[in-house]
Each structure stands twice: as structure tokens, then as C-alpha cells.
């Protein structure tokens, strides 16, 4: 009898565990079988068809960054890796990030600069064990620079990149846990934490009677902002309170129950710190549940906009936002080359990874000028700390290239940020905002 019970228990545990595992796997990344080498091969193939676009852009790159030649790194090969979501739900992000970096590598080589050799590895849309394994492989293959993405995988690989001495940039899932980490630099504002004061201050300014705030967030990125920063700022701004706070797994597609719980709390405004496609499902569910008030998000992607359809109209978001329309000469050179190569406008994430390669190029040139070894990541990082300001496709104007500055203490970045509204499916800037320090008046985040 006991053996029968044990047998039943074993079967039950086995079936539940097996199905749970499969469901979890599918939540993070289903159907992901691409090896890093296969991904690298495909991206190299994509890069090979780009010469004409890059050559066309070569002149404008030289105009902005100076002449090529040995002093500009010609003849120097930088082995680099990218740790991206090549497969799984976030594969769109992996695609645009690699496109940005590959274009930059082509443009720099065409302009007589370094030969930036990229190998793309797949963390399968945020799978931490895979990210660790793939990073180890990249380091064993001798990379000197790594462009990583997502929050959890990037946090997990910190000890590995530090032990391997690999200069690393994250332009996607920046998070507080990645601050002040040796060898790791973020060229995206800290997710949720940096834009939240400005976004909430704008909500308060625009809807002065709003007191009840509902918060939505994931259990991965922006958790600190969700639990502490945003409630504190809202109380400081309005004297009001958080009436609902709902978290969900990354990759959730059914937000109907969540939307109904939010609606039942009768909030005046909703702030969500979710990201990626989740936002599209979420906003659609909120609107279909009957919520008609303001929704403030933390990013805009065309992917999520497709999911939400007309429900995205009028929704706001506060972010360090990239726009192809920026007349900044480097940005226009970049947009033209990107369109020629990929047949579409560049977007936010691709632009961050594009800029990272140019930061590396700048560092290589500085190390060569100082008589150092440009293939030594430690020397590249020392050059970054000595002068953390770089050209940018963000900011600037029709005659001036934008500038961004990395913080040499916490390794974050300062970039132009704004509150935007979605109109006719496209983002429109309505308020510039700036990063503020903890404890400062949140209203001062409005520029």
C-alpha cells in the first residue's frame, strides 16, 4: 500500500515537475537551439552584404571622427562578443542590437579604423545559466570587449567578466545591481530608476488631482523602483498613495486578471515598469478592462505597439529615448547607413549598441596615442575613466554631434530623457526630463 502511494507520489511529482520545467522554459525562451557559433555565422553573413552601405557612410564617419590610418586603429583587431537574446521571446531585441553593432563595426573599418570582430552568443531571452556558459565560452575564445543585454544575465556574469578582465557594456537591461562594477559600463540610463522621478513629476503636473497610483512591474528589472523609489516619490509629489502594486513574470501574455485587479483599486494613474512585448499585452488588457486613465510606461517598442494596436494611442512613456529624426549630423549619417543596410529606421536598442562600438573605437585611438596596447581591456578602461565623455547619436543639433558622459564612480550614463505620448502609433516628445539624485525634489527632474 505504502509502495503504491509512493509510486503515485513519484508519478505526480514527475509529471508536475516535468511540465513546470517545460512551461518555465517556454516562458523564458522556447525553441532555442541556436548555438553561439551558428548565431555568429548568421550575423557575419548579414554583415558581409553591407559594404556598399558602409562605404557610403564612410565619408561622414571620417568627417565626425577624423581620418583613418594606424593612429585610428587600422590594423588592430579587437575580438568582441555580444551576449544577446538571439532566440526566444526577446529575439527582436537581439536582432536590432546586433544590427547596430555590426553596422558600427563596418563603418569603422571602412573609415580606416579598428577591425572589430563580433561573435554573437545567445542567452535565449534572459536565461541566466545559458548566459554564464556562453560568456565563459566567449572569454575562452579571447574576447576583449563584451556587449551584454538584459538585467538578470548581465548581473550574473559580473564575476566572470571581472575575472576575465573583459571591458563590458550594457545598453539594454541596465539595473542598480550593475552599478559601480569594475569592467561593466551602462550606456542606457538605469532602467526605471532614472526616468521614474521625471515621469511621475510629469504625471503630477499634468493631472494635479491624481492621488491614487497603481504600479505594475516584473520580478526581474526595476524591482527597487517598483517597491521603494516610485511609492516614495509619488507620496512626496502628491501626498497620495499606491493603491495597487502587481508584479508578474517576464513574458506574460495574459494580463486580464491583473488588469481587473488594478481596475478594482480605482487608480487615478497607472505606472508600469514592465518591458518588451509584455507592455503591449498589458496596455491592451487595461484598456479592454475599462481603465481609461493615464498609463505611464518605461519604454516604447514597435513590437509591443503591434500587440496593443489602437490601445496604445495616448499612452505615455518616460525614457532616455532615441529618435531617428534627431538632426545631429552623426545621427543622420547613422540613420542613412542603417536604412541602406537593413531597410528600416534604427531604433533605441540598436542605437545603444551602435554607440558602444564607437566608444570602444575612441578608447582604442586614445590608447594608441598614449603608446599603449589597444588590445588590453584594462588599458581601454583606464582611458575611459580618464575621459568619460563620448560622441552620441542622442542630443546635439543640426550642426553639433551630441555628447554623453559615463559616470566614473557608478558606471552609469547621463543622456537626454523625455516623456513621450504615442500618437498615430508613433512616439512624440512632450516633456524633457533629467536624472536627479536620491532625495532631490522630484519636480526638479522636469526640464
Amino acid at each position, binding site marked *: 500500500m505504502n509502495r503504491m502511494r509512493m509510486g*503515485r*507520489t513519484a*508519478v*505526480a*511529482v514527475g*509529471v*508536475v515537475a516535468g*511540465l*513546470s520545467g*517545460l*512551461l518555465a522554459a*517556454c*516562458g523564458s*525562451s*522556447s*525553441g*532555442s*537551439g*541556436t548555438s553561439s557559433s551558428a548565431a555568429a555565422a548568421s550575423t557575419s553573413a548579414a554583415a558581409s552584404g553591407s559594404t556598399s552601405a558602409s562605404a557610403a557612410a564612410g565619408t561622414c564617419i571620417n568627417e565626425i571622427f577624423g581620418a583613418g590610418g594606424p593612429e585610428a586603429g587600422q590594423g588592430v583587431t579587437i575580438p568582441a562578443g555580444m551576449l544577446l537574446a538571439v*532566440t*526566444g*521571446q526577446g*529575439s*527582436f531585441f*537581439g*536582432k536590432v542590437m546586433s544590427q547596430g553593432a555590426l553596422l558600427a563595426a563596418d563603418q569603422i573599418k571602412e573609415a580606416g579604423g579598428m577591425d572589430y570582430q563580433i561573435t554573437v552568443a545567445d542567452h535565449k531571452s534572459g536565461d541566466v545559466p545559458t548566459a554564464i556558459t556562453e560568456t565563459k565560452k566567449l572569454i575562452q575564445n579571447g574576447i576583449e570587449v563584451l556587449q551584454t543585454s538584459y538585467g538578470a544575465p548581465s548581473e550574473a556574469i559580473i564575476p566572470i567578466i571581472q575575472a576575465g578582465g573583459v571591458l563590458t557594456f550594457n545598453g539594454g537591461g541596465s539595473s542598480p545591481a550593475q552599478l559601480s562594477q569594475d569592467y561593466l559600463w551602462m550606456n542606457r540610463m538605469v532602467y526605471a530608476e532614472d526616468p521614474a522621478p521625471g515621469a511621475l513629476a510629469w504625471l503630477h503636473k499634468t493631472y494635479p488631482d491624481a492621488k491614487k497610483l497603481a504600479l505594475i512591474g516584473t*520580478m526581474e528589472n526595476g524591482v527597487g523602483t517598483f517597491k521603494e523609489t516610485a511609492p516614495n516619490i509619488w507620496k512626496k509629489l502628491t501626498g497620495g498613495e499606491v493603491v495597487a502594486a*502587481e*508584479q*508578474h*513574470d517576464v513574458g*506574460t*501574455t*495574459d*494580463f*486580464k*486578471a*491583473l488588469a*481587473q*485587479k488594478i481596475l*478594482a483599486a480605482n487608480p487615478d494613474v497607472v505606472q508600469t515598469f514592465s518591458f518588451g*512585448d509584455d507592455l*503591449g*499585452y498589458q496596455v*491592451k488588457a487595461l484598456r*479592454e*478592462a*475599462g481603465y481609461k486613465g493615464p498609463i505611464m510606461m518605461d519604454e516604447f517598442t*514597435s*513590437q509591443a505597439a*503591434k*500587440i496593443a*494596436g*489602437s490601445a496604445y494611442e495616448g499612452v505615455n512613456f518616460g525614457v532616455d529615448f532615441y529618435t531617428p529624426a534627431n538632426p545631429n549630423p552623426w545621427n543622420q549619417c547613422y540613420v542613412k547607413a542603417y536604412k541602406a543596410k537593413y531597410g528600416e529606421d534604427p531604433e533605441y536598442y540598436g542605437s545603444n549598441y551602435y554607440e558602444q562600438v564607437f566608444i570602444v573605437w575612441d578608447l582604442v585611438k586614445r590608447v594608441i596615442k598614449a603608446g599603449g596596447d589597444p588590445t588590453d581591456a584594462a588599458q581601454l578602461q583606464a582611458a575611459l575613466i580618464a575621459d568619460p565623455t563620448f560622441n552620441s547619436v542622442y542630443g546635439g543639433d543640426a550642426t553639433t554631434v551630441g555628447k554623453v558622459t559615463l559616470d566614473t564612480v557608478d558606471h552609469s550614463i547621463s543622456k537626454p530623457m523625455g516623456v513621450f505620448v504615442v500618437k498615430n502609433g508613433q512616439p512624440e516628445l512632450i516633456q524633457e526630463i533629467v536624472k536627479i539624485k536620491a532625495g532631490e525634489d522630484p519636480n526638479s527632474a522636469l526640464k
Partner: protein
Amino acid sequence: MNFELLAQLTITGIVLGSFYALMGMSFGIVYQTSKIFHLANAIPFAAAGFAAVWSAETFHLPMFGAFIVGLVAAVIVGLLILVLGYFPLINRNATLLSLFLVSLGVTVAFPNLLQIVFGTQNKTLQVYGADGTLNRAFETQVYNVGFLTITQLDIVKIIVCWLVVLCVVLFVNKTRFGRSITALRTNPTMAAAVGINSKVVYIVVFAIGSLIAGMGGLFVTTEFVAYPTMALQWTLIGFIAVFFGGIGSLPGTALGGLLLGLLSSWSSVWLGVQFAPVVVFGALFIILLVRPQGLFGKAAA
């Protein structure tokens, strides 16, 4: 207790549970007849969505024309898996584990194939309007009944899902061919002895399962978008509905799906919505402990 919220979540649970029931029927009819753990049921689901999007844009088909193309694609893909993947192994008396491994392999490969062919971008089902522009095929209406809210698509989903459940149950229980399916399921040796061609039964059963999976894919594509990894989570829900409701009982599978949907939705009243999967798997665990044959399944003799 917020009764308005509970009532609204009940509506949500019925919508969700109806879709779970549909997915349960799709997997259940295949599994119960062939005993193949047909994870690759995810493939017709995604194939229907992508075929509908592609045909609407390429051949300027109206929404229902694109649906038909999507369903045909689902059936073709499902039968190709059976004929090219499973039959050669069945002919060699391969174990069920071998069949499962084939299923797992194609399930992993197919989303990558979709990414290569169609790209990584989400695909919206769009149809050409009279002015020649492409527009989203379907924008759902929201209906308010008192304090309750439901969308037009949710109503369609409930009706279609339960009509499909009814049709499949009637087909299996009331038709001559359906009795062949039951015979093959309950006693394959005896079924063969009385002249039932198991391959023909498998073809019909896989066609039905793939057709239903394709319907699921079309619902998701119409409501949101099509994307390469869209199917696996719903396919797994189908498995859970089968084990929860009862192996060997198609009505039990459908009721199991409905109960899972309600449980998942109701649990968010007391727990955060992130705990819904925990509740679902917890319920499955308890059911398997207490009634290994599932809630409405029949114990083996």
C-alpha cells in the same frame, strides 16, 4: 471580499478556461488515441497564425479567407509531422520515448525556422481595406453589462471553443468512425483484429488535433500577433488540462481546462497574478496524488 472583482474574474476565468479546454481537446484527442506525447502540436498552432498573416498580405485575402488558409496549413503541417516523423518510427516498433524525442526535436526547431523565414518581428494580422491600405484585421469591441466587462472576441472565443468541444465529443461517441477511435484507444490489438486500420485513424485524429490547434493559433494572432514562440505555452496548457480533467475522457479534459482557467483567475483575488502558475501546478499535483486518472477520468481496470 470584493464581489464585483470576483464576478469579473469569473468571466475572465471562463474565457481563459474555454481556451484551455480547446487546447486540451487538441492534445487530448491525439494523446488518448495514439499515446504519443505530441508536444509538436505547438507547430500547427504557430503555422496557422503565420500562414494567415502571410496569405492576407500576399494574396489580399479577407480575414476569413486568411483563417481558412491558416487552418489548412495547420492540418497539412500536423499530418506532415505524423507521416514523416512518427509513421517511420511506428513502423519500426519504436518506443513512445523515441516518438516523444522526435516531437521535442521538431518543436524546438520549428520556431527557429519561422524566425529564419519570417524574421523576428511580431506579425500583425492585417487585411487590405477598400482604399488599398493594410489595416489590422480585427479590433475587438468592449461590452459593459452592469459592472461586468467582456470583449466581442471573448464571446466568440467561448462560443467557438465549446462548439468545438461538443463536435469532437459527438464525433468520437456517436459516429462509426468515432467508435473506431475509441476501439483503438481502449484495445489496439482487438481493434486491429476486427479490421480497423490504425494508420487511417491516426491520420484523422491528427488532422482534427491540428485543426483545433490551428484555431487556437488564429485566436492568438487575431487578438494580438503571431510570433515564432507563440505556441508552446498553450500546448503545455493542453497537456495539463488532459491530466487534470482525466485521461481517457474528452469531456473530462474540457471540464478540466475550464476549471484550470477559473482557478488561475480566481487565485489572483488572494494572491498576486504571478502565482497563477503555482496554483495551476499545485492543483494538478494534488489531483494526480488523489486521483491519478484525473478529475473525470476512469481508473484502469
